[in-house]
């Protein structure tokens, strides 16, 4: 047992027998093939968007491009006003992250540390909300957005609905709660003796101790906001408010195919870059949410 990590069903000794050895090779090849299937289609679209017009429309299409026309990207970027969509998406992302961390974090703190009587009931209600399929709420939710209760505001063409929705994510509440559960109560008691309020304890004690979970949730939220389609599509009707995903969907019928490839590249590249840089945090999200399983 040289490495404790790299062990599973196939033991080190078994690997030397020819049968198992062959099985292992087959597995390896299959996984390599799978990796190609997973990555190739998206990579191909991105790379193809670089081909010049002549090569792009050549039949049959080339698998590996022979021409690289970077200028085309810049032209499409300006012509289709992608700067606007990127900055819209950024605004939506920042707001969503703020609401997601603040509201879900406070809820996690409430359920993990404050736990007043009656909080268990509320917690059950929230978990149930997560489990119930939401097949009925689409229309009433839309109604609430175009005529916000009590205030009677029309929130279409604003980012408020998405920001607020980011603030009520039962999964994130669960992740926060289970992380806070591991923070010793004695730290809170000490702060209380020093005269800190409940909110003060949250800001000064809980949050600084929760940097890893906050990082993971931030990355997850950034990614989720970038991909979010349905509600932005329903809410952001005005072209000047579109996010990138809404834009590529709404414009797809109007564009020649080579521009579609370019816009798809614009939509795919940022999350992929995010993944390359923050892979660890995203993978960690699965460990944090592992409590579900």
């Amino acid at each position, binding site marked *: 047992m040289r490495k404790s990590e790299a062990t599973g069903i196939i033991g080190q000794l078994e690997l030397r027998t020819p049968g198992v050895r062959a099985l292992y090779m087959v597995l390896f090849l299959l996984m390599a093939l799978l990796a190609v299937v997973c990555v190739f289609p998206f990579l191909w679209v991105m790379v193809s968007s670089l081909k010049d017009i002549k090569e792009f429309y050549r039949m049959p299409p080339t698998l590996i491009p022979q021409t690289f026309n970077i200028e085309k990207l810049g032209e499409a970027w300006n012509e289709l006003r992608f700067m606007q969509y990127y900055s819209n998406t950024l605004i939506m992302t920042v707001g969503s992250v703020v609401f997601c961390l603040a509201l879900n974090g406070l809820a996690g703190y409430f359920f993990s540390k404050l736990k007043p009587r009656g909080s268990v009931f509320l917690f059950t209600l929230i978990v149930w909300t997560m489990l119930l399929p939401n097949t009925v709420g689409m*229309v*009433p939710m839309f109604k609430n957005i175009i005529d916000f209760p009590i205030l009677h505001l029309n929130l279409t063409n604003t980012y408020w609905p998405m920001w607020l929705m980011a603030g009520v994510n039962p999964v994130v509440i669960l992740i926060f709660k289970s992380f806070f559960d591991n923070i010793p109560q004695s730290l809170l008691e000490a702060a209380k003796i020093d005269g800190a309020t409940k909110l003060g304890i949250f800001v000064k004690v809980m949050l600084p101790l929760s940097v890893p979970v906050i990082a993971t949730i931030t990355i997850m939220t950034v990614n989720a906001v970038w991909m979010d389609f349905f509600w932005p599509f329903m809410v952001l009707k005005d072209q000047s408010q579109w996010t990138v995903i809404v834009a590529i969907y709404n414009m797809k019928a109007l564009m020649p195919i080579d521009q579609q490839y370019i816009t798809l590249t614009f939509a795919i590249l940022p999350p992929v870059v995010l993944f390359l840089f923050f892979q660890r945090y995203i993978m960690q999200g699965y460990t944090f949410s592992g409590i579900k399983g």
Partner: protein
Amino acid sequence: MNVIPDTSVRKPTPNPNPIPNPASAPSLQPAPKPAASRILRYLAKEWSSWLLVVPTIIVFLIFAWQPLVSGIYLSFFRTEGYSAVEFIGFGNYVDVIQNSVFLQTLKNSFVYVFWSLVIGFVFPIAVAIAINELRRGKSFFRFAVYFPNMVPAIAASMVWLLLFQPGENGVLNMLLSYIGIGPQGWLQDSRLTIPLIVATMTLRGFGGTVLLYMASLQGINQELYEAASIDGAGVWRKLFRITLPQISNIVSLMLILQISGVFQVFGEPLVMTEGGPNNASMSLMLQSYFYAFRYFEAGHSMALGVITFLILMVLTVIYFWLDKKFDKEA
């Protein structure tokens, strides 16, 4: 006759048992105060805690609970725009069920689930186990498998739409022509459309499932395998007797989540086929969306939503019943 045991409890003898007896605790306290003052005391102590979750509760109300309740309520009304006009009992339900598309849509939703189980259920388990066995490149394969998850669903659907173009110019048809197979209709072929949509959904989502399974596989005690090896168990035997039983809990959780999730499928067919060709890929939720936002019949949309909800509840109950029964027999 109550008196005698009661006094014996109240005797101020030192309790030798350090754990307080919860049953006797209330009787030790002075007479209960009136309810009002108890509530006041509770508020005085906890108002600040509740204040911290008031925003969360309000947002939950507006975006989760109120829509659910009012959706069920509205499904019994004739609607104009998005408001109730007149109570019509089960009128919307009758309309929806009698619509000629309903049976096809219902069947399609089950077909989606069927194909997602065929294509997407065993597959991530096998991949997770396989990657877990690899001695080299584990993190690369994990990365590759998770990669499609990072591509926005809409963009991915559009990529597939481009690749699945029918006719000889489609990329996949071109690839097929190299191995001597004629051009396919792909999504335009009513027999292929659901399996293909499910295949793209699987490719998009299975990486996350693989990661969950891998986390679970890492948790298996290595000594089990070693002990089995010493007893002469081969690879397959270890797979079926140790690995699979050890991860069976999470597998069964993923199964019900997958059934419930796929039954509500809606974004992918919306983008890729809009329910076509000829309703061959129309799902219940997509139909509900069309009722609400294309035909502007909100009442019908919510009636269909309630029907879908009830079917899912029945499926879930059956699932848990089977699960329990299976557990007992196993």
